[in-house]
């Protein structure tokens, strides 16, 4: 970016302008993807709950629903409760959003498509994402409401706890590949899908699921959404918020969902690689076109993971706070430690033959599993009395895709 701008703006002005452009692009992306996610969430929730979701606004799929929501939020009255601490109440959402947004600075979307190619990108992303909780705490505390305070407290306890196993799970692939540079990690997974890290050894495979669970929890997504548990705390830490400030919290949430999904993709799932061609797409289609494809692949992968989070949210019931903490401290933490230890020992002790070829076994097995699932999805018999189905999860009458 700097190289492109330098001849036009001169060496002094190019870096700040490049930085500003990058930041703007990212902000735009975060905002847009938040809009998309909010719509997607509604649709997914609707489908899973056996209804259609938004349909009226914006034509067939209700795709304008979020825009409408946004406009509504923008014009809403900005209420600050009398008991609230003005300063903290105002600062909370921005802190949360800024923290989530900062994570994108080091997240490569394609080969070299990254705002700042940090050497310690993983670490950095995890670090700044962890700041998000501070905004939530401040919001909870500053609202001057007991519901909010409870939500903030829960959020703090939960996120601080889940950060530990999450960080350890992140360490497992970092340890295996030997770098924290996300771009580098992504490049290393070029090739067929079995060169993805997740198939490298059984510990990485397990680490992926553990990481994803922890990430779900640290994004305070269901079934770990204790901070905003509607049934108990009205709306948790953002009970007192409305309007734009409220929407910032949601932008932050969806942004961090995307960010942790991005990390999962980069660390485990081959980053921007399709896994269906043996090399990087930039080598096939050139730098620009290849990278555009790469970015698309990456975003799709992240969306898929975000979709899984939504799927989980609308499928599983919410845990109790003690169950949440117990899951983390008594299960996930030891599991992650064992995985770290196991991965280290695996690297040290396994013969080269196994190290090199096990990935084909795991990758093949998982691929076969997916294939079987897909075949089952397509050819499986629908529940009795229903005409057409795509599968047990989505197989509901009235689902557009199925009808088509």
């Amino acid at each position: 970016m700097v190289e492109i701008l330098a001849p036009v703006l001169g060496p002094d002005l190019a870096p700040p302008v490049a930085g500003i452009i990058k930041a703007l692009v990212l902000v735009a992306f975060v905002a847009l993807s938040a809009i998309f996610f909010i719509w997607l969430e509604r649709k997914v929730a609707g489908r899973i709950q056996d209804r259609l979701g938004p349909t009226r606004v914006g034509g067939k799929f209700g795709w304008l629903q979020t825009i409408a929501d946004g406009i509504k939020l923008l014009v809403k009255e900005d209420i600050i409760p009398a008991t609230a601490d003005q300063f903290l109440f105002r600062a909370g959402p921005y802190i949360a959003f800024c923290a989530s947004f900062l994570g994108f600075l080091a997240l490569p979307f394609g080969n070299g498509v990254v705002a700042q190619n940090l050497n310690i990108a993983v670490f950095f992303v995890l670090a700044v994402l962890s700041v998000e909780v501070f905004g939530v705490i401040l919001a909870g505390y500053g609202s001057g409401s007991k519901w909010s305070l409870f939500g903030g407290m829960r959020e703090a306890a939960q996120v601080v706890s889940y950060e530990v196993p999450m960080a350890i799970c992140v360490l497992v692939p970092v340890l295996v590949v030997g770098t924290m540079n996300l771009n580098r990690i992504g490049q290393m997974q070029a090739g067929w899908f079995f060169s993805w890290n997740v198939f490298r050894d059984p510990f990485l495979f397990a680490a992926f699921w553990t990481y994803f669970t922890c990430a779900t929890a640290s994004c305070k997504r269901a079934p770990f959404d204790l901070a905003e548990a509607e049934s108990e705390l009205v709306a948790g830490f953002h009970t007192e918020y409305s309007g734009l400030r409220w929407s910032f919290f949601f932008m932050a949430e969806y942004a961090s969902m995307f960010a942790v999904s991005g990390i999962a993709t980069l660390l485990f799932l081959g980053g921007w690689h399709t896994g269906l061609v043996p090399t990087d797409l930039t080598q096939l289609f050139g730098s620009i076109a290849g990278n555009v494809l790469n970015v698309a692949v990456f975003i799709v992968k992240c969306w898929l993971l975000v979709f899984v989070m939504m799927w989980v949210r609308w499928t599983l019931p919410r845990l109790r706070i003690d169950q949440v903490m117990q899951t983390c401290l008594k299960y996930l933490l030891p599991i992650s430690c064992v995985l770290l230890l196991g991965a280290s020992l695996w690297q040290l002790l396994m013969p080269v033959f196994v190290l090199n070829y096990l990935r084909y076994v795991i990758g093949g097995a998982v691929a076969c599993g997916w294939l079987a699932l897909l075949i089952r999805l397509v050819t499986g018999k629908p529940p009795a009395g229903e005409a057409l189905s795509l599968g047990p999860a989505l197989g509901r009458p009235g689902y557009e895709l199925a009808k088509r």
Partner: protein
Amino acid sequence: MTLAASLFWLVAGVTAASAIGVVVTQHIVRAAVWLLFSLAGTAGIFFLLGADFVAATQVFVYVGGTLVLVVFGVMLTAQGPFVSMKTSAVEWAVATVVGLLLFGVLVVCVMGEPAFQQAQPLKADQNSSTVLGKAFLGVVEATAEAPLTGVADRAEPGARTRVAYLLPFEIVSVHLLVVLVGAAYLARAKRRRMAA
């Protein structure tokens, strides 16, 4: 003004102002917020200084961990929703005088040292985390003589002692673990006292 200089002034200003905010504010949670800004600003300073690993650690440990802990402490010990313990004006005055004195002495010391003013920044193009990793493993590249203190580390440059920081690092890790256990022990509910 170059980009680096302007960034420095920006970040340093935020950091210093937030630090002063910590001192000045009467409200402890707000103090925590100011502290957050100050710490984050320090992390920014570290980035500017090319120590990105330290910066990330600063954010991760301080902002993500310590500060949350602090706020926790605030909430656990709060007597009312908004607690402020006023400090008397005399104390303010005395403390300010002493603080200014101390600041003055420090600045005089720093400014008065010519070596500090002549010091030139090293090229920070090297990956700091790589350097740190090597240092932990005891692999130390040859470095020049020390112009800063005027005292050469060894007679000839490049003959630095190989010091591995892995063991201290491990010790610190274990230390941290022990401290956390100890803190948990200290902070756990004292049923005995409640009963009494």
